């Protein structure tokens, strides 16, 4: 139970760090070589991470919890 819980917290932290790095890259791209396509792609990557890991879209067809 504890190892499962720790693994879940680790996943949350990893996803949050990835999102933070992508936001930093987004800001860097915008101030150094503004490209609408790259910015929208970065936004899309962030959205996929949020929908998949934080919003648990894979649970949509399941009738039980996430553990």
């Amino acid at each position, binding site marked *: 139970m504890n190892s499962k819980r720790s693994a879940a917290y680790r996943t949350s932290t990893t996803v949050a760090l990835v999102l933070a790095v992508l936001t930093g890259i987004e800001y860097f791209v915008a101030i150094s070589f503004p490209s609408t396509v790259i910015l929208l792609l970065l936004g899309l990557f962030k959205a996929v991470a949020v929908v998949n890991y934080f919003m648990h879209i894979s*649970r949509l067809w399941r009738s039980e919890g996430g553990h």
Partner: protein
Amino acid sequence: MSVVTTAAPAAHTAHAAHGNAHHADHGEDYGVALRNNRMGLWLFFLSEAFLFGGLLATRFYLWGPYRPEVDQTVGLIVTVVLLISSFSMNLAETGMEHGDRRMFNIGLIVTFILGLVFLFGVIIFEWGLFPALYEGHLTPWGDNQPLNAEGLTLPFGAVVFAMTGMHALHVISGLVFIAIVWNMGRKGHFSPEQHWGVESCAIYWHYVDLVWIFFYPALYLIGEVVGHR
């Protein structure tokens, strides 16, 4: 006497069997309800996507390749605050899923505080509603709108206020949702097995973050900056 002693376990077994069947039925009902609830929530998000998608389309249609001069530091800070709030909300939900009520409580409280920080960031710095604290650059209407390269006035203020206003409205409803869930959790309403209230609150909050993931570049990062008059 022997009848009683033999009948009693039988009755107990029958009662237990009935209880187990009832429990199983209840579990099955909860499972079906959970699946339907999840589908309902995602259908709601789909309907909301049309609203926010419409606002995004408005921004690109009316502004084209331009954007107003906005405070980049404010934009980055409120974005990071919302991102961290999504993380703390996920920790709260994961805590409840694994019976860690301490993490659930801390996560919800931190999310609520960060949500408030985001909201005040928008009200004070993006909208400039308190000039004594911060001089805002944009107004929703009026003659002081910036001009683009062709000397045309574009509705910068109206679009910024419509997009951030609609998003802020969802942040406020998310904060109310968090407060209700925290109070219910405090009274012991949720368990690791049954916590749809917590899950839906978390997913709703992440949806608010998801919308901002697209609004942030659209308002702050994409397009050529148009100065003030």
